[in-house]
């Protein structure tokens, strides 16, 4: 049987419809199922959220155990930070440095030897006056109302102006595709692509879930204290009012929000 013109049009029409229909209907169906890594946070009720006006951290490094990397390991695991195994491509959000490197102006050879030898945790200072935000040509780096300096990895063009601007060396560039170098991918946090800059985000994805930053919870010594500087009753305020503390290169006017208890 040869199909006549009428049948042909019918079949053609039906096939076209069957091709178009799912495309039109799909978004409506997909809405329920759509899952984006890290999007879990959107469903958390707002009552659970940790809210602050100016998040900050106190580092009581006298409590730091020698050779301990708990905070580093926890952070880098949660945030899918790759391990390239070479300093050139290295990406780090939190790591340890010598006192002389962190506080060059305050350092001299007659300081206690234990202090000179100790590795002290360093991370993004979440400056109240961040130079990296000022220089970014696409607003990919911005400061939130709660003081967290954060990045949009999808907008970053990889010009690395922020890396030149950061006085703390807190930023890393993805000089190559990071994904093959992540030992265990955490599906709840996005991985990055090559060619963008990244840094510590003060665990904003945990704060909305009502959990403290990964480095803080990982520290058994309770050397890291996270809190809201605008809350006079916060633990961090109490701590800083009792102990002498320093901020890194505060003379630059960046208003860093990591306080080091000496």
């Amino acid at each position, binding site marked *: 049987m040869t199909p006549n013109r009428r049948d042909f049009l019918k079949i053609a029409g039906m096939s076209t419809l069957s091709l178009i229909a799912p495309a039109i209907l799909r978004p409506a169906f997909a809405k329920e199922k759509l899952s984006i890594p890290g999007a879990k946070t959107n469903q958390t009720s707002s009552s659970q959220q940790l809210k602050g006006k100016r998040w900050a951290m106190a580092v009581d490094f006298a409590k730091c155990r020698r050779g301990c990397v708990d905070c580093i390991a926890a952070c880098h695991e949660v945030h899918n930070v790759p391990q390239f195994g070479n300093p050139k491509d290295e990406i780090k959000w939190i790591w340890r440095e010598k006192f002389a*490197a962190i506080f060059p102006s305050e350092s001299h050879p007659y300081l206690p030897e234990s202090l000179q030898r100790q590795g002290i945790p360093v991370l993004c200072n979440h400056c109240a006056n961040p130079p990296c935000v000022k220089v970014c040509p696409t607003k990919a780096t911005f400061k939130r109302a709660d003081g967290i300096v954060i990045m949009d990895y999808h907008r*970053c*063009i990889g010009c690395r102006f922020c890396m030149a601007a950061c006085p*703390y*060396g807190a930023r890393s560039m993805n000089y*190559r595709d990071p994904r093959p170098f992540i030992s265990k991918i955490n599906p709840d946090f996005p991985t990055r692509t*090559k060619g963008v800059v990244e840094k510590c985000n003060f665990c904003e994805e945990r704060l909305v879930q009502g959990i403290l930053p990964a480095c803080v919870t990982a520290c058994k010594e309770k050397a890291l204290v996270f809190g809201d500087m605008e809350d006079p009753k916060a633990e961090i305020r109490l701590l800083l009012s009792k102990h002498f503390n320093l901020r890194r290169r505060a003379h*630059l006017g960046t208003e860093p929000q990591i306080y080091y208890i000496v």
Partner: protein
Amino acid sequence: MLEKALRGSRGYWMWIIFLVAVTANGFFFYWQQLNYGLGITGMSRDVSWGLYIAQFTFLVGIAASAVMLVLPYYLHDYKAFGKITVLGEFLAVSAVIMCVTFVFVDLGQPSRVMNIFLHPAPTSILFWDTIVLSGYMLINIITGWVVLSCDRKEVPPPAWVKPLIYLSIPWAVSIHTVTAFIYAGLPGRSFWLTAIMAPRFLASAFASGPALLIIFCLILKKYAGFDAGKTAIQTLAKIVAYALAASIFFVLVELFTAFYGGLPEHEAHFRYLFSGLHGHHNLVPWMWTSAVLAFGALAALIYPRARNSEPVLVAACAAVFLSLWIEKGLGLVVTGFIPSPLEAVTEYVPTGPEMAIALGVWAGGFLILTLLYRIFVAVRQEENS
């Protein structure tokens, strides 16, 4: 007028083929960089800007130097420059194209480059630099082209070009000032955090750009039968001499503050440049070469009998160009990162692919320049015949 670029001697075509080959080679390695990422270069976490951004910075100076021809001719009616202002403008055009290309190849995510315009950030100096550079390129291509076409038809240029040419004078100053502000406004980089950065950039620009132009004029005289005239060349040489003197003076002023002031975070960078730091001294031989070339060239350019001899003049101009290229295109950018904010000394050495890409951009720029100069020479020869 464009068709004139298609006629030339055998040497002309050999030169064109050579430039196309070097550009193509650059493209090949850029393709690899696109696939692998910027890790293909020598840049690192500590030294996050390298050869590309340094070439960009140096070439902004070359672009700005066109004003050294335009200003005397249009503001002071200095007739000797009348024949060659277009050469300066065309040099500016090709230099700006190289600048923009160098910034582009330095991007980690080049496909997102339009974000600069989609999400403009007026607080960023890079945003303003994009604006002044593209504006400067437009001004120069329009004025250069219109003036040359009118010369060809032997009619005076239309009245509307004049204001545009006048605008190009402060605009030239602006491009290098804004480029200096990229560096001079970063509180954590004490090597760059100096108010003299913009004046220093301008002085070195007004020496290196005209030095290059003198060399080009003498090449055109020898191989293309276009003579810029001895007066024009000698005046240019004097401009180079004064600008070079100012440039050297500004560097010495910096050295005084760094070493006599003795502020450790300021001094460390200069120490790295001229004597090495903690056993790292990659740039030391380069910087001393730059210093010797600068002083040698200055002596040759100040002394009239030396300056008047063409071979000496060419050597002096080449020395000026090389010296300032080392200073700005090699030392200035990298040293801002050495030592790092955490006192680490990480040295930087460009990789092979990185150099191939950089050479490719230079060759592409010279290709555009060659075509523009070929048109220029053809029009001038037409006038004479």
